[in-house]
């Protein structure tokens, strides 16, 4: 024990290829392999689930195992439609960004199943505290896409009055909390909201959202501690899309364990789920929501998925990650996977898919025209700069009235 060689710093070094890094995620379980415990299970008895991967859809599109949800055809088709609509929305917005109609956009390509299927497990009155990559929560409930576009174009009808960066929606009515540009802050807020619901003996539940990279933020820990102590009705979602801008999940602590496992130290049960499997997402979401509604407390869910697109329109992943990995869609395309399942069960066809895609594209195009007519970042109708002084406080104090006058309004 006496002599020791010099120390050295470990810096996670994922495999590089083509000048970029790979995300190197942990191994997967087979579809149907993971058991489905009752919702009132003792959290200590399901620690293993944080190291498995709940999957329902196998490679051939069969729904297998205990987690396969019993859904009617309509529900599944709606799920497919929601995901396809989300992707159509993204693609339309990318076009508009390239045309200079907005300053900024963020896609969720490849992650559509997570938000779309999760939303279908919520009820009116429940509240999501989303990140910028959960547009699917709004689209899955058919929130008017024109309203979202108005925000993105920062036009005269933007309910956020042009104050927020594009995609930082807020929609109280849709159970969608105002998105913050500061990563992580919403996680503990969701816990506080759920505590409030419990304090008021309400029946509403909350859902917290965070990315793999952002789990390193302080609010993540605060949320877990408070959730552990007060056992409020909250679902703690971690969307592990393997990347945080240029940093693979290993830089967030995912090199040797899973994010789901974080929950254990707080006596919170955790699931790790294939986030590109619509049926698995739906089943796990319902399981966690039911726990929350029965006052059984918080559940953490790590959704394993993959960020196929660049981080945002300001980002160029060719500088930091392997093209091969990116092109390979590591967990498959959630839309393709559900489509295959529906076709296999005789509930859908390639033709109907093509037709639906065309319909959705037309819908987006019409919505885009409608939104554009209300103005874009640089053109058309525009909110008065005087609105900048509103809503800082409920009532405008004297110093802000003076400043507004100085600006000439």
């Amino acid at each position, binding site marked *: 024990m006496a002599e020791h060689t010099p120390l050295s710093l470990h810096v996670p070094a994922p495999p590089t290829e083509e000048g970029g890094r790979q995300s190197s995620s942990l191994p997967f379980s087979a579809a149907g392999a993971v058991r489905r415990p009752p919702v009132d299970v003792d959290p200590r008895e399901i620690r293993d689930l944080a190291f498995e991967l709940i999957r329902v859809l196998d490679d051939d599109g069969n729904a297998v195992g205990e987690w396969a949800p019993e859904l009617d055809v309509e529900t599944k088709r709606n799920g497919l439609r929601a995901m396809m609509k989300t992707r159509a929305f993204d693609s339309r917005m990318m076009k508009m960004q390239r045309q200079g109609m907005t300053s900024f956009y963020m896609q969720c390509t490849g992650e559509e199943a997570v938000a779309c299927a999760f939303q279908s497990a919520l009820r009116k009155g429940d509240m999501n505290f989303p990140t910028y990559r959960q547009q699917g929560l709004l689209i899955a409930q058919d929130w008017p896409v024109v309203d979202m576009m108005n925000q993105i174009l920062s036009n005269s009808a933007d309910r956020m009055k042009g104050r927020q960066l594009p995609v930082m929606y807020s929609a109280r009515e849709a159970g969608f909390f105002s998105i913050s540009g500061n990563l992580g*802050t919403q996680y503990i807020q969701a816990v506080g909201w759920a*505590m409030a619901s419990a304090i008021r003996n309400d029946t509403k539940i909350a859902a917290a959202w965070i990315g793999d990279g952002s789990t390193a933020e302080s609010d993540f820990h605060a949320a877990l501690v408070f959730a552990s102590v007060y056992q409020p009705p909250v679902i703690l979602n971690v969307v592990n899309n393997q990347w945080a801008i240029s940093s693979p999940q290993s830089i967030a602590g995912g090199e040797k364990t899973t994010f789901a496992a974080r929950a254990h130290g707080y006596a919170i049960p955790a699931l790790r789920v294939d986030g590109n499997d619509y049926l698995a997402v739906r089943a796990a979401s319902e399981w966690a929501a039911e726990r929350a509604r029965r006052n059984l407390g918080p559940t953490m869910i790590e959704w394993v998925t993959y960020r196929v697109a660049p981080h945002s329109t300001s980002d160029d992943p060719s500088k930091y990650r392997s093209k091969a990995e990116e092109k390979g869609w590591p967990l498959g395309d959630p839309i393709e996977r559900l489509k295959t399942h529906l076709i296999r069960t005789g509930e859908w066809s390639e033709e109907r898919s093509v037709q639906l895609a065309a319909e959705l594209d037309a819908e987006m195009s019409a919505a885009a025209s409608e939104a554009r007519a209300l103005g874009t970042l640089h053109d058309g109708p525009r909110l008065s700069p005087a609105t900048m002084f509103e809503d800082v406080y409920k009532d405008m104090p004297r110093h802000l009235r003076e400043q507004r006058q100085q600006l000439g309004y």
Partner: protein
Amino acid sequence: MPSRTMIEAIRSAMDVSMERDERVVVFGEDVGFFGGVFRCTEGLQKKYGASRCFDTPISETGIVGAAVGMAAYGLRPIAEIQFADYMYPAYDQIVSEAARLRFRSANDFTASMVVRMPCGGGIFGAQTHSQSPEALFTHVAGLKTVIPSNPHDAKGLLIAAIEDEDPVIFLEPKRLYNGPFDGHYDRPVVPWSKHPLSDVPDEHYTVPIGKAVVRREGSAVTVLAYGTMVHVAEAAAQDTGIDAEIIDLRTLVPLDIDTIVQSVEKTGRCVVIHEATRTSGFGAELAAQVQERCFYHLEKPVLRVTGWDTPYPHIHEWDYFPGPKRVGEALVEATAKD
């Protein structure tokens, strides 16, 4: 009317509010079962139950972050930070979240909430139990910052803060908790019961946020003060015999500039005092505004008497604290005919 200490007045404000409004909840470190290290929440858990008054984990981030979520739900949370010196871990939630929620969502979500915290020195608490961080709040658009100097105002302002639709930072000068300390640390402690502003009605009342008050009328010089320093200013006026007009700001943002301007236009001289570090303290804003608005009335520059630009020391507390002697010297300087 019963005489109350500052602690009792603050407790009464929360009690009255919890009684009237089921949405009011109170929490913080040691706040529930024990009733707070300064006893401000004593008895509230017993009276209203553990789901309306409870202990929290030691996470200021969590306390304020949870409060933002509760406020978004529709509760009226009152979060206690055990000492203002420990608010920094909560600063992101205060600045980036509570303060901006209404603006960024254009009223879709709001954060009507109060963050209470004891501030200021004078109890030999050294650098981490003595700070006055008000300027770190006044720089942040969307926050209201309130600091009472006596039990009557404390209750009225706290009720007003709880009922306010915006996030309010409520600073409690801890050296005033048990008596109207005027900076003469070597004299016997005076209890609140001897002070007229300790008359605190049992029932609900408010003192409006955004309104200063002239504590002492005078013609020689205007003194702008708040919290403990109001009493120090009174002592300095008495000690020097200078006929100072002492304004107790009570609210720093939004500032009652009219009361200030009216007074300075009358006196032509102005001294600004606070306990916080000098550079970029709230006194800088006051001095800047007074010279902007009253320039042609000013006979002398606006003077600042403040804590020094050092961390709050332990043994040299009274050398750091801007007591009646230093304030008195500034009054003399400001009123000197040269």
